[in-house]
């Protein structure tokens, strides 16, 4: 078991402690009662922008212990779900042409809207004999690609947390000559702004902890300052999320929306300077498409001119669709766009658990384990559970 002073062990002990949790839940209930009594509030809608927060919420059954008026909704927080179909189609095409294709497990299952030679995803392509390899990290792909000289491509999805690995591999000259990237990285704050502008009625935001380790918590200031939304940068243990909820309710009660770092054990206001330098050195920030949502200004990472030799699109003559050419890329009937923006619940979709299941995903939110639909499918909503608790 744990060793003395081991922070990993202490995290699990402290931030998953049942007694502490029950005390914090009681505080949440007290705050909720005060909000109702003093302000006549009927519903509080707290949005997260991180699939891992959604995972923590469902994995620990946090919804089942909250008062009925306190609702947690998932915003655009899964880098896999929001990857436009175009990138998947391009990757499938290259794989079928005989290139070695690397990616993470979640992107491996992501379906495209269009079928390429009967394949809708990289896992389909592998079934048809293409060389598709699932890796844990970009570093593992670098090492594997260095062992052979086959032309290879990495489907590089991810937010601010994931993209420094690509930049570091490139800047440190670790990437072998036969490995190029389909760069599909995205930035979170522009999407958060987009979501709160369009969806409205968000009472509070739980901001993504690991994205903030890179960007710094400061990037979320616009939420309280421009939109009066209480914002808490939170960690990923159940108590982190419960404490974040407490802090949001408290701000609502005091009518004092501000930015608070709950995840202070690893997040600062300014963030990770080294990683930010790497990102700036390798990528340009460009207008970019989000699946089911459309173009969002300055929300994408693209390899800049100095590193264009790592650009798989340039290397293999693939042109990205422009803003004008971009089309709605969801399959008929799929409401993932609204689910991603937190405007609809997975159970509002008529395909949920019928046509679209974790084993046979139809929409992008069912593909990633972190997608809202997949999480709801596996962990269930609130109703069935309250009785057991």
């Amino acid at each position, binding site marked *: 078991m744990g060793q003395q002073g081991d922070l990993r062990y202490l995290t699990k002990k402290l931030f998953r402690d049942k007694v502490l949790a029950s005390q914090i839940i009681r505080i949440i209930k007290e705050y909720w009662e005060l909000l109702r009594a003093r302000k006549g509030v009927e519903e509080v809608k707290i949005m997260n922008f991180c699939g891992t927060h959604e995972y923590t919420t469902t994995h620990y059954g946090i919804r089942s212990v909250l008062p009925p008026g306190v609702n947690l909704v998932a915003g655009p927080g899964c880098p896999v779900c929001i990857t436009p179909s175009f990138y998947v189609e391009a990757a499938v095409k290259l794989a079928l042409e005989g290139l070695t294709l690397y990616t993470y497990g979640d992107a491996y299952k992501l379906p495209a809207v269009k079928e390429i030679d009967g394949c809708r995803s990289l896992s389909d392509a592998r079934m048809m004999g293409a060389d598709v390899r699932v890796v844990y990290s970009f570093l593992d792909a670098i090492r594997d690609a260095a062992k052979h000289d086959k032309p290879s491509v990495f489907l590089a999805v991810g937010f601010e947390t994931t993209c420094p690995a690509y930049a570091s591999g490139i800047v440190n000259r670790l990437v072998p000559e036969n490995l190029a990237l389909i760069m599909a990285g995205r930035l979170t704050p522009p999407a958060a702004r987009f979501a709160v502008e369009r969806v409205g009625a968000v009472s509070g935001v739980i901001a993504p902890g690991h994205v903030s380790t890179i960007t710094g918590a400061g990037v979320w200031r616009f939420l309280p300052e421009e939109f009066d939304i209480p914002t808490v940068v939170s960690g990923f243990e159940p108590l982190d999320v419960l404490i974040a909820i407490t802090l949001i309710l408290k701000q609502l009660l005091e009518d004092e929306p501000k930015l608070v770092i709950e995840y202070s*054990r690893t997040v600062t206001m300014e963030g990770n300077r080294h990683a930010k330098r790497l990102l700036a050195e390798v990528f340009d920030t460009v207008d970019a498409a989000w699946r089911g949502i459309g173009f969002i200004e300055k929300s994408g990472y693209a390899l800049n001119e100095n590193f264009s030799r790592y650009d798989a699109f340039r290397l293999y003559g693939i042109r990205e669709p422009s803003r004008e050419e971009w089309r709605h890329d969801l399959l008929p009937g799929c409401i993932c766009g609204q689910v991603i923006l937190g405007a609809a619940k997975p159970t509002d979709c008529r395909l949920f658990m019928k046509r679209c299941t974790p084993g046979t995903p139809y929409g992008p939110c069912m593909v990633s384990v972190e997608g809202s639909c997949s999480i709801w499918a596996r962990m269930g909503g609130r109703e069935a559970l309250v009785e057991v608790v």
Partner: protein
Amino acid sequence: MCLGVYGKVVRVEGELAVVDFGGGLIKDALVGVEEVREGDYVVVHAGIIVSRLSEEEFTEVFRYVEEAARQLAQTESRVAEYLESMRVRLQENLSGQK
């Protein structure tokens, strides 16, 4: 997004660091932070160290909770007991370490 795992740096080799994820679970990772030393606790995401963990800040977050409970205690007296039991619980968890 962004699954992050806590690890302890075993050694640093240039742009790579060997990280112990607990119980002898060892894997190396890219160093994505300015400075990292042997013995540092770090957050690793998909094979890159994205930040360090600060020991001083570790239990700081529970101050918020204590403060919240204290505030409520002024209006709702039964909340005082939360505060006390929380203080005891924190102490138990922390002393279990020593």
